């Protein structure tokens, strides 16, 4: 393994190969590995994506740069993959709601969102979100998109990974960028949920 320098792709393939051999031999199951990965999945993202979204909410010029070229704008935060895949941010508006999927595997903007949740990789989500996005959002995620809003589903590939810039919740005036970032959820950047509401001023 240490004989020559491996590319990232070669190492990723080697890890995948090792996993498939160990599963074939009955030494472990994918579920057992997923279970351990889940413990650590928050070590990478989605707090990075949340920072980017908070900046975009606060700074209209940055928002423009982000929509223009997300990979470049994220580089301002030192966020980016080594593989150089392009990231594209699709912005929600009053008329359009965006949601991302990888119809064939699990391509995901991991530099900003970390590792994908298990349901993102499951065939049920991958197939149904394309066929009946509104219904899946409502029934599986409890997220109602009004009929007056168009839903667009974006299919990520290994070359181009989409993620969603959610609309800011109401009542965020005067919040710092850090406070804003704490409202941005992973699901809101996938498009299957809304950002959290800010704590109401009278509540504390």
């Amino acid at each position, binding site marked *: 393994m240490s004989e020559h320098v491996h590319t990232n792709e070669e190492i*990723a*393939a080697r890890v995948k190969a*090792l996993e498939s051999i160990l599963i074939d031999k009955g*030494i472990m199951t994918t579920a057992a590995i997923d279970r351990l990965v889940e413990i*650590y999945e928050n070590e990478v993202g989605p707090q990075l994506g949340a920072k980017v979204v908070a900046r975009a909410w606060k700074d209209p010029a940055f928002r423009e740069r982000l929509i223009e070229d997300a990979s470049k704008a994220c580089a301002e935060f030192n966020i980016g993959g*080594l593989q150089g895949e392009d990231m594209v941010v699709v912005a929600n508006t009053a008329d359009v709601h965006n949601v991302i999927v990888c119809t*064939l595997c699990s391509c995901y903007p991991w530099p900003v969102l970390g590792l994908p949740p298990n349901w993102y990789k499951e065939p049920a989500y991958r197939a149904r979100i394309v066929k009946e996005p509104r219904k899946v959002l409502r029934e599986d*995620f409890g997220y109602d998109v009004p009929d007056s809003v168009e*839903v667009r589903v974006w299919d990520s*590939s290994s070359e181009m990974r989409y993620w969603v810039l959610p609309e800011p919740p109401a009542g965020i005036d005067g919040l710092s960028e850090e406070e804003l970032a704490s409202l941005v959820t992973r699901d809101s950047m996938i498009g299957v949920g809304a950002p959290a509401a800010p704590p109401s001023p009278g509540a504390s």
Partner: protein
Amino acid sequence: MSAGVRPDATELGDARRRVEALVAQMPGGRPGELAFSEPWEIRAFAMAVAAYNSGMYEWSEFQLSLIESIRQWEQGGRDPDTEPWSYYEHWLTALETVLAGSGLLSESMLDERTKVVLATPRDASHQHAHLDPVAVDPAI
């Protein structure tokens, strides 16, 4: 969506504590300092713990193997300033070594399987960017 499958927070906390107790003794693996920068790293990390959990080796064997891999790299005359350093490459090497030691794996077997993985595109059309939404549910 998978509410029934997802372990509750307490169980997750316990599992994490057990893993961290193992990792705390590793070189460069103090709790809270496990930074993953690539998805394969977290996968390799989880596999080593899973193989240990299924009794494939003693954790101390894996630990020694990791120390040995790092030592060899350091003594290989490489310049740490210019050579890329990857903790998890050593982690993977250590895992391969202990599994080979228990007769579960051979280097040629893994090389072969890696070639197969590399030769299989995840999907032929999926290498290309999809520039338009794959589905649109229009507003009424």
